[in-house]
């Protein structure tokens, strides 16, 4: 607990003598400059771009176009497809990564021979570079001689090879599968760390009281994991919504627009069509949608906390 004397001295420093801000501000200035340069400036620049027609090699020809780019996007059918794909992509990836991670964490939390080695090996997908994951899964899902097709045909689940990444209905699920494989270890490690922080006494008490393993999971494990789950899901939703490496390499957003997501659409518009104004507008739309989802999520989170208390 703070002593009253110290509190009053701090208050005096904050409100009474403006000079005491100089040194902290000076010490913080490198970090502040860095933040302004790498976070604030690009955001402001993107907002500025969204109101301009920008010629990248002839900035002198750039024109203020007001809300034209936003108006165009309202009637853009490709953006609607990309938004729907983004929703499916984020929901599919995060749900399956969470489920896989939870199961993985519960297994890795058990005592069995070679546990330490398996815990280490389980991290390999997470440590594999995205480009490598994309290329590996592209060839595994290849429609002519991919491993996945070969296994499914040999197991008599399929009668002939399927072009997983070349069919509109299976292209996005194919990419989701690759990202789930890569991201499961992240959830598993986070949840495992949280699991290990739960005192063993609680499990023991529940078991002595006659709780079945299912009831222990439901009434002891999951409530105590909830803060970690909520935080990890939030982080993962943001990362997945912005993540486009896998899709770009595996399908390029195709066939057609079947696996085109919003960040990939923004990238193509800016860098392939050289329409930086529209590209920035699409990126801002993505930020606004994501911010709305996060605000809703955090509100739910706070409600849950109140209910728990």
């Amino acid at each position, binding site marked *: 607990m703070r002593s009253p004397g110290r509190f009053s001295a701090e208050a005096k420093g904050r409100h009474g003598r403006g000079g005491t801000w100089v040194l902290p501000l000076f010490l913080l200035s490198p970090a502040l400059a860095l933040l302004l340069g790498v976070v604030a400036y690009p955001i402001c620049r993107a907002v500025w771009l969204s109101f301009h027609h920008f010629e990248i090699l002839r900035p002198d020809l750039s024109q203020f176009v007001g809300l034209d780019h936003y108006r165009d996007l309202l009637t853009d059918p490709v953006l609607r497809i990309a938004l729907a794909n983004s929703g499916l992509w984020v929901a599919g990836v995060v749900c399956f990564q969470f489920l896989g991670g939870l199961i993985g964490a519960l297994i890795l939390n058990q005592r069995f021979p070679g546990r330490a080695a398996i815990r280490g090996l389980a991290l390999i997908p997470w440590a594999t570079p995205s480009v490598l994951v994309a290329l590996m899964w592209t060839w595994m899902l290849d429609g002519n001689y991919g491993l996945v097709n070969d296994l499914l045909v040999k197991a008599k689940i399929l009668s002939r090879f399927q072009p997983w990444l070349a069919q509109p209905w299976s292209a996005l699920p194919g990419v989701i599968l690759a990202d789930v494989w890569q991201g499961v270890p992240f959830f598993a490690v986070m949840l495992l760390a949280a699991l290990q922080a739960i005192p063993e006494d609680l499990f023991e008490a529940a078991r002595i009281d006659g709780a079945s393993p299912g009831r222990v999971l439901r009434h002891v494990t999951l409530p105590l994991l909830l803060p970690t789950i909520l935080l990890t899901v939030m982080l993962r939703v943001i990362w997945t919504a912005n993540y486009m490496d896998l899709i770009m390499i595996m399908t390029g957003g195709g066939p057609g*627009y079947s696996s085109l997501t919003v960040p990939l659409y923004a990238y193509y518009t800016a860098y392939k069509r050289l329409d930086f104004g529209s590209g920035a507008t699409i990126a801002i739309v993505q930020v606004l949608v994501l911010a709305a989802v996060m605000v809703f999520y955090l509100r739910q989170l706070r409600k849950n906390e109140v209910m728990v208390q």
Partner: protein
Amino acid sequence: MPAPRRFRICCLVVAALAVLFVPGGFTPLHAQTPTVVHYWLWLDDPTAPMFDSLVKEFNASHPGIKVEYQLVPLSEYHDKVVTALAAGSGPDAGRFKDWWLGEFVKLNALEPLTPLIGKWPGRAEIIENLWETGKIMSSGPVFMLPHQFITFYLYYRKDWFAAAGLKPPTTFDDFLVAAKKLTDPTKNQYGFGLRGGAGGQDQWLAFFSAAGGRLVDGQGKVILNNEQGVKANQWYIDLFRTLKVAPPSAPTDAYAQCLGAFQAGTTAMFAHHVGSSVMVTQKPGADSVGVVPIPAADPKKPATMVTMAGNVVFAGSKQKEAAFTFISWLSEANATDKWSSSREGQLPSVKSVSKLPRYTNNPFFKVSLDSANFAIAWPPLPGVGYVSAQGWQANMQRALVGQISSKDMLDEIARALQR
């Protein structure tokens, strides 16, 4: 250390630094500093040693110029050049595709080379009609110096054709008969490796032109979505949609998948250019692979596509003359021959080199060079860069999976070309 000795060492260090850094103070050393030319390029195989040895040879024979080069993958090349030029950190010169010419000239990013070409002795050696690939208008200046070009032809499995009693296809009718006969999905075998994925626009343009479609008319007006174009495009789409002579993966198959399928015996025919000739002779093997020009709907009107990978000097360069010295050296007989005969080999733009026996006796080079007489290039329109990078692929795939019609696809591409 005694003080006088320390003083002498300090004096020596100061003198050494002065020699190195005082501008103009020591003219002989300063005068020897060569002009540095920054050059960017892509190579299909970045590990190929050919280009590095060419740069070393140039630097050794031109003491006043030092070329420093950077390799950029073709898929990223356009974006990286644009952003680097915008940031003022672009190269002085670079390898360049005719796809991007219209877009970059519109943005005043390329230096007109005609005055420098006028002083270049090697200009008479360039195959005459290839100069057109570096211009926006026939009467206008040259922006891209011709270097290596490709024309599309058709590989076919000689052994499969012989076993099935088929003749090498020269017409669309021959092609369809062979493609149908050699398609057997139960054996995962298909007649033709259609490329609907990245880079497939060149293969498409070869067949689209051979089917009678044209991108622009004589006045440069975009006409690809006229009746003839829609019909030509429908023929190509039907290879996958109705005739099903292409693998089910065709909508997203890119070069690696198409080459891999041909090598693995999944496809009987595959359209590409001399850049893959070494690989197909390794597998499935020289005895199993034949090559013919792209078959034509009307044998009297053959057509294919040609694309030039030339060299440009960027307008923002401060070393334009030195940069031109390097790119023009690349287009002279010695360097062209070394490039064309390497595993990066494409067709030489130099007359004397194209007549060398190593090219005229090579069936792949011969068919390619013969095809150059009736080959059609992408027009130098500002939208070609976007169409070749993404616009064609997205719309072709939508047409292949039945989401849009042939006409809708061509309307979209026409709009993008005229942007």
